[in-house]
């Protein structure tokens, strides 16, 4: 009993166990919901819903929002679930962070200013969100769900996600820092 409980209270599992788990989850998601696991469209829908809220319906006029449809759907709930699932795992393993603004790797190179980190995260988020919709998917939609279906679009995307990411990360930590 003790070992079964401790599996869930362990902070980390083997990345292979986690990966196999996500792979099995993709089977179930296809079989039960007929859909691949993907997340970035939900952020675009949220952006549109916020614009509608502020402007009283202006987002509904935009062709892009007509295409992706501004409503709470399966995938939107999936993203909410990711927040809850991560929270659950973090809480039961004593890993929930309180008051952490600056990741330690970032702090080791750029200091512990929360303002700097938040501004950079904001800028990075803008680029990431724009790029995710430009590419038609993200690390989950293309990087896992698309590549496991052997989609050409997803293999090309996954490769260039990492090409762009690896070059930029090295630039940030080896040139700027």
């Amino acid at each position, binding site marked *: 009993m003790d070992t079964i409980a401790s599996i869930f209270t362990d902070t980390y599992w083997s990345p292979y166990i986690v990966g196999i788990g996500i792979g099995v989850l993709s089977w179930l998601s296809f079989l039960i919901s007929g859909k691949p696991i993907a997340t970035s469209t939900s952020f675009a829908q949220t952006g549109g819903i916020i614009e509608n809220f502020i402007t009283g319906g202006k987002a509904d006029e935009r062709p892009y929002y007509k295409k992706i449809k501004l409503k709470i759907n399966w995938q939107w709930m999936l993203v909410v679930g990711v927040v809850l699932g*991560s929270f659950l795992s973090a809480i039961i393993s004593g890993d929930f962070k309180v008051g952490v603004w600056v990741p330690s790797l970032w702090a080791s190179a750029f200091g512990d200013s929360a303002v700097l980190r938040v501004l950079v995260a904001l800028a990075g988020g803008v680029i990431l969100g724009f790029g995710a919709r*430009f590419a038609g998917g993200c*690390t989950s939609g293309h990087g*896992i769900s698309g590549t496991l279906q052997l989609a050409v679009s997803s293999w090309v995307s996954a490769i260039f996600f990492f090409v762009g990411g690896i070059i930029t990360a090295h630039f940030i930590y080896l040139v700027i820092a």
Partner: protein
Amino acid sequence: METKKQVSETTQDAKDIAAVEDRRPLFFGLGFGILFGFLLHKGGATKYDVIVGQLLLTDFTVLKIMLSAVVTGMIGIYFMKSLGWIKLSLKSGSVGKNVIGALIFGVGFAVLGYCPGTIAGAIGNGYLDAIVGGLAGILLGTWIFAVMYPKLKDGILKMGDFGDITIPRLLKVNDWVVVVPAVALIVLLLFWIERAGF
């Protein structure tokens, strides 16, 4: 009277059933999300240090998770496809989208240190840079794309269009002719990563 009442009750029941049926996908989505988020956290993929460590090629956790998910998923998905249980759900692609768009994504991935799925996990994990900075940025970035979409859709997004094909379709071979070597290559790559000490 009696029959009329019954009829209206049946339509009401039908409506209730329709409403429940309509909501069922939302609960399944939530459930799959909870499991996905739980696994992402257990894998350490909700942490900036792990994700950026991968991009700096000092920590291979993210690649190990992704590749073992892809191998597992691919075998099951193609097995179920061959039995006719499921249909693939492919994204159409182009050089503009999947090279230029993906490179832009990659820059944001490194600057932010989270991606759309893992930032949801990072929020659940309590990281405040993800909640305050990253989430707001992603919402803003997708909105900028939505505003620019009419200008992009017939230009750069269509550049080098290749549609929603799979690698087996592209090579005009049986699915398993690609699945088997792909699985073997990924497993070999993972063994090699382990042996190299990452």
